[in-house]
C-alpha cells in the first residue's frame, strides 16, 4: 500500500496563456479510493498524465511514499493508468491485451497465462479471452482495460473518467466492479471525474479541483454539509445563499435572525442551506413563504419559494410537494444543524 503525494505540481502547456495546473498539493491516502473531481478544463487529466509520467511538470514533485518518481520514465513508476476510452490494442486478443504489461516485464508465458486467466475470471470475461477488441461491447472493452491495468498490481492506479463512455446500466455495474476490486486489492486509486454524483457514489475521499486549484479535499458528505466556499457549494448543487452576519449563535440577514448550530464562526459570512434540508411546515427557524413554482422531478419535487422577497429553493419528497400550487402561503423551517456559514465572496461588503 502506497501513499501518493503531489507537492506544488504545476504545468503550463506551450502556447497556452493560462496554466493548466497552479501548484497542486494533494495527498492520496494509502489504500484509498480518491476522486479527483472538477469541471472540464480544471486540470484533472493533466494531473493524471503528470502522475503517469506521460508529460513532465514545470515545477513540483510527485512522491510514492517517500520516493520521488518525478524524473522516472512512465514504465518505471509503478503507476498504471486507464484512459477515458478503453484504447485496447486492436491486434491483440482480450487475453493478449490483459497480459501485455506482464509480457513487457518479461515474465514467463505460463505465469502470464495464469495471472491473465485469474484476472479475466475476476472481471467475468473468461469466455471472451480469445476475442479481438473489435468484437467487444463498450462495457466489455472498459472491463478489459481495467483488468489490463490491475493485473500488474500497480502501486497506484489512475482511472480517467472510467464510466463516461458507458450508458447508465453499465455505469452502475462498472462502478460496483471498480469499488469491489479496489477494496479487494487495496491499491491506492485516483479516479478522475467531472460528475459530482459519480464521485460521491464511488470514492472514499473527494479532491475538488476548480481552475487548476485544489479547493477542498474531504469525505463526500462534507461537500454537502461543510462546503469550503460558495463555488464548492454551487458545484455540488447548492442554490441557497444568504449574506449576513453571525453573532452570538444567531445569523442576521434579510430573513431576520436565524438560530445557528453551535461552533460556527462569528462575523460576516454567507449562510447556505441545502435545498433538500429545507422543511415545509413549522419547525425551528420558521419563516412565512409564498410558493412560486412546483416542479416534479421524479424522485423529488422542487419547490421555488419567495421568503421576504428572497428566493429559496427546496427539494422535498414528491408527495410532500405535489399538493402545493403557486401563490399558496406556507411556512418553511430551516433546521439549525443544516445551516452552514461560508466566507463572504471576495469584493462583497
Amino acid at each position: 500500500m502506497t501513499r501518493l503525494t503531489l507537492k506544488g505540481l504545476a504545468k503550463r502547456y506551450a502556447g497556452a496563456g493560462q496554466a493548466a495546473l497552479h501548484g497542486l498539493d494533494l495527498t492520496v491516502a494509502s489504500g484509498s479510493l480518491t476522486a479527483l473531481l472538477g469541471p472540464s478544463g480544471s486540470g484533472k487529466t493533466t494531473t493524471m498524465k503528470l502522475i503517469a509520467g506521460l508529460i513532465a511538470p514545470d515545477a513540483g514533485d510527485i512522491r510514492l511514499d517517500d520516493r520521488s518518481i518525478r524524473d522516472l520514465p512512465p514504465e518505471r513508476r509503478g503507476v498504471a493508468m486507464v484512459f477515458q476510452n478503453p484504447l485496447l490494442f486492436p491486434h491483440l486478443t482480450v487475453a493478449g491485451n490483459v497480459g501485455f504489461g506482464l509480457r513487457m516485464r518479461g515474465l514467463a508465458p505460463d505465469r502470464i497465462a495464469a495471472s491473465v486467466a485469474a484476472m479475466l475470471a475476476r472481471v467475468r470475461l473468461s469466455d471472451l479471452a480469445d476475442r479481438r477488441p473489435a468484437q467487444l461491447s463498450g462495457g466489455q472493452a472498459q472491463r478489459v482495460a481495467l483488468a489490463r491495468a490491475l493485473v500488474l498490481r500497480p502501486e497506484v492506479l489512475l482511472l480517467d473518467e472510467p464510466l463516461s463512455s458507458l450508458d447508465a446500466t453499465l455505469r452502475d455495474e462498472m462502478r460496483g466492479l471498480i469499488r469491489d476490486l479496489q477494496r479487494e486489492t487495496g491499491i491506492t486509486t485516483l479516479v478522475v471525474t467531472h460528475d459530482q454524483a459519480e464521485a460521491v457514489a464511488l470514492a472514499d475521499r473527494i479532491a475538488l479541483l476548480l481552475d487548476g486549484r485544489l479547493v477542498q479535499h474531504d469525505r463526500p458528505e462534507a461537500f454537502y454539509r461543510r462546503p469550503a466556499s460558495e463555488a464548492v457549494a454551487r458545484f455540488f448543487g447548492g442554490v441557497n445563499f444568504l449574506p449576513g452576519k453571525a453573532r452570538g449563535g444567531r445569523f442576521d440577514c434579510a430573513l431576520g435572525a436565524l438560530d445557528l448550530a453551535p461552533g460556527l464562526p462569528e462575523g460576516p459570512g454567507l449562510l447556505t442551506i441545502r435545498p433538500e434540508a429545507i422543511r415545509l411546515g413549522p419547525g425551528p427557524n420558521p419563516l412565512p413563504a409564498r410558493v412560486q413554482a412546483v416542479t416534479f422531478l421524479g424522485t423529488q419535487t422542487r419547490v421555488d419559494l419567495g421568503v421576504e422577497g428572497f428566493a429559496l429553493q427546496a427539494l422535498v419528497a414528491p408527495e410532500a410537494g405535489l399538493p402545493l400550487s403557486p401563490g399558496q402561503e406556507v411556512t418553511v423551517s430551516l433546521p439549525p444543524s443544516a445551516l452552514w456559514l461560508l466566507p463572504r465572496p471576495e469584493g462583497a461588503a
Partner: protein
Amino acid sequence: MTDRTRIALLLAPALLLLGGLFLSGLGLTLLRSFRYFPALGLTEPDLGAYAAILTSPGFLRSLGLSLWIASASTVLAAILALVAALLLRQSFPGRALISFLVQLNLTIPHVVGAIGILYLLSQSGAFARLAHAAGLIAGPADFPVLVNDPFAIGIILLYVWKEVPFIALILLANLQTLGEDHESVARSLGATRWQAFRHVLLPMLAPGLAAASALVFAFAFGAYEVPLILGQHAPKALPVLAWQAWTDTDLATRPEAMAMSIVIAAIGLALLALVARAVRQGGE
C-alpha cells in the same frame, strides 16, 4: 431511385473505364498468350508460349532480376519511409518545409528521375567528375559502376527515392488517425519507448505499411521505363524483355511477350491478394 441503383449509376463511369479498357485489354492479352491470334493464323489455343518462356534461361534470369529489383526497392523504401514518417510525426522547427520537400518528388516522373540518376551516377556523370576534380579517382573507370550495373543499384536507388515519400505519406496519415494514446497506454502499462513502438505502434501500422509496400512492389516489378534507361543490356528486367519480344520483327514472338505480361500481372495480383488477406486476418 433506390440507393442501390444510385450507387450503380454513380459507379458506372469508373466501372466502364475499368472493364472496357483494363479488363478487355487483359482478356485480349490472355488470349494472345494462349497463342490464339487469328491474324497470324493461330486459331488453336495452347500453352506453347508459356512452355517456351518458362524453359528459356534468359526469361528466368530476367524474372530473377525483376524480383530482386522489386524486393530490394520495396524493403529499403519501406524501412526509410517508416523512419521518415516517425520523424515527421514529431513537431520541430522546419517540419513543414521538410514535409514539403519529402512530398515534392512525388510529382517528378520516373523517366525524368531515371535520366537524373544517369547524369549524376554514371561513370562519366556529375559525381564521377567531382570525384576526379577532387583527385579521388584517376578516370571514369575508377568510379564505381552504379548504373547499368549487374546489381541494378541505379534502378533500386531511383525506386527508393521515388517511393519513400509515397509510403511515408500513407504512414503519416495512419499515424495521424491513430494518435499517440495507444502508445501512452503501453507506456503506463510498463512498456519502454522501444517496446511501445515494437509491440503496439508497429503492429497497428503494419496493415497500411503492407498495403503500400505491396503497391510499390507491384509497380517496381512491372514498370518498364526505369530498367530500360538504367538497366544492363543482359539480363534485362522482365518488362523490358516483354516489350522487346512484343516489338520484335518476328511476329511469332508476340504470344511469348503476352505470356510474360501475364506472368508479371499474375505475380503482382497474387501479392496484393496475399497482403489483403493478411490484413483482413490481422484485423479480426
